């Protein structure tokens, strides 16, 4: 009886430890550890149906195929995410309200493979007179991660595209799209467990598709 009781305690302890490990690896952690700007840093979403995100890749140069694969990869996940492809009419890096645009640049001096930025839409009163209120205002796309995302840009460095590393290019854009969904870097350095299990781990290039961890995070956010 005494032995059985001890075993039971040990078994329960092991089970608890296993569950905690599983929760750390697979399930979303508490809020701010996983996300770019909890709780508002994400796209507006009704809570049901798909989250349609307009994106373009026709200015991504040698990343064109990779960007399409990256969007496909996110669309294939069991999440509300649906990247809907459109086009942009000038490859000038402009930010467009309601769009996530992928632009290429070529800079061998830059250490980065890709950059992601989200933009909130601020409405700013230019002239205010009481008691009439705001009599003139404008809207502005403001680079920030902590308010509802109205737009995004992904810049990809074609100096890094050597032609033989397509797998990495897909991973690069998939990772940046993850940022534009609101996901932060994931890994032990961000309070999570060790090991490679996320496309959002910036030190891990062994994946080029969203992983279960990322799917859980997206479903927690939207």
């Amino acid at each position: 009886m005494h032995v059985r009781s001890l075993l039971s305690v040990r078994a329960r302890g092991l089970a608890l430890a296993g569950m905690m490990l599983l929760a750390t690896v697979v399930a979303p952690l508490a809020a701010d550890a996983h996300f770019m700007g909890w709780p508002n840093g994400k796209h507006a979403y009704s809570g049901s149906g798909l989250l349609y995100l307009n994106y373009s890749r026709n200015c991504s140069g040698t990343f064109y195929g990779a960007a399409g694969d990256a969007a496909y990869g996110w669309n294939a996940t069991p999440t509300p995410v649906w990247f809907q492809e459109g086009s942009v009419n000038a490859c000038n890096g402009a930010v467009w309200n309601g769009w996530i645009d992928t632009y290429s640049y070529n800079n061998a001096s830059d250490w980065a493979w890709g950059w992601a930025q989200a933009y909130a839409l601020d409405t700013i009163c230019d002239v205010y007179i009481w008691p009439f209120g705001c009599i003139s205002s404008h809207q502005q796309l403001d680079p920030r991660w902590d308010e509802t995302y109205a737009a995004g840009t992904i810049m990809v460095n074609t100096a890094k595209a050597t032609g033989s590393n397509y797998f990495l290019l897909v991973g690069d854009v998939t990772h940046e799209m993850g940022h534009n969904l609101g996901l932060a870097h994931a890994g032990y350095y961000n309070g999570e467990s060790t090991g490679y299990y996320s496309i959002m781990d910036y030190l891990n290039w062994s994946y080029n598709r969203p992983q279960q961890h990322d799917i859980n995070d997206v479903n927690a956010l939207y």
Partner: protein
Amino acid sequence: MAVQMLTAQRSVPSRRVMLVAAGALALAALVPLSQIGAPDYSGLAANQVVEMHTSRLPVASLDELTKHSDAVVLGRVVASGAVHFIQAEGQKPAALQPDARLAGLAKAKDAAGIAAAPRSDTGILTPPKGIPVTDFTVQISQVLNGSLVQGSTITVSQPGGQITLPSPKGSTAPTLVRTLVAEHDPQMVVGQEQVLFLQRSSDGTFHVTGGPDGRFSLDARRTLKPTDENTTLGASLKGQTLARLVQNVNSIKAGGTAQ
């Protein structure tokens, strides 16, 4: 009698002057009154530091870092200069080629029939285009490897920098300023002395090899503190003495290996 004399000497303002003065006072009172309920932009207008999120293939080893560097120096940042932008390639946009695989997926996710929305930025002000880069002036305290000269200054470019968002003419709202900083690569600070692995750019300026991977602070004991301690390279060099680093770099440059 005395009271009467004083009264007689005081100049009495005319009714017209009194009215003008009262009007002016009323107008002056209206100025602050007109701002009752005005939006408070103190939070929005504050210069916010915004991380630009990046992906990079971290430098794997000191061997790789050294071989890709033209010089290794201990340098002090003496000035922060102009911000310029890495621009998009500007090529002709590719024709849209819909991904045929999406049809089945769209059906499965019930996404069929949804087309991308038309574009319009009418009436919306947008931030400057491109990736901001700041030029820093660095004075070389010590040449650890390479042909640079101790005491001279060089320009080192680093992604990130302060941008000003546009605002319409006549706006009384505060101008918004944002400092964009590359994730894992905090901006250099004037006065900071660091070990820098440098690559020479085609325009004669320098940039740090591997970004955060090629930049190290020194602690009080003159041992290395990597900018990004999470990488394999950062973890391996953390705590190494400057003397040991120099020895290893010189060994690698001479065709040997790090000890």
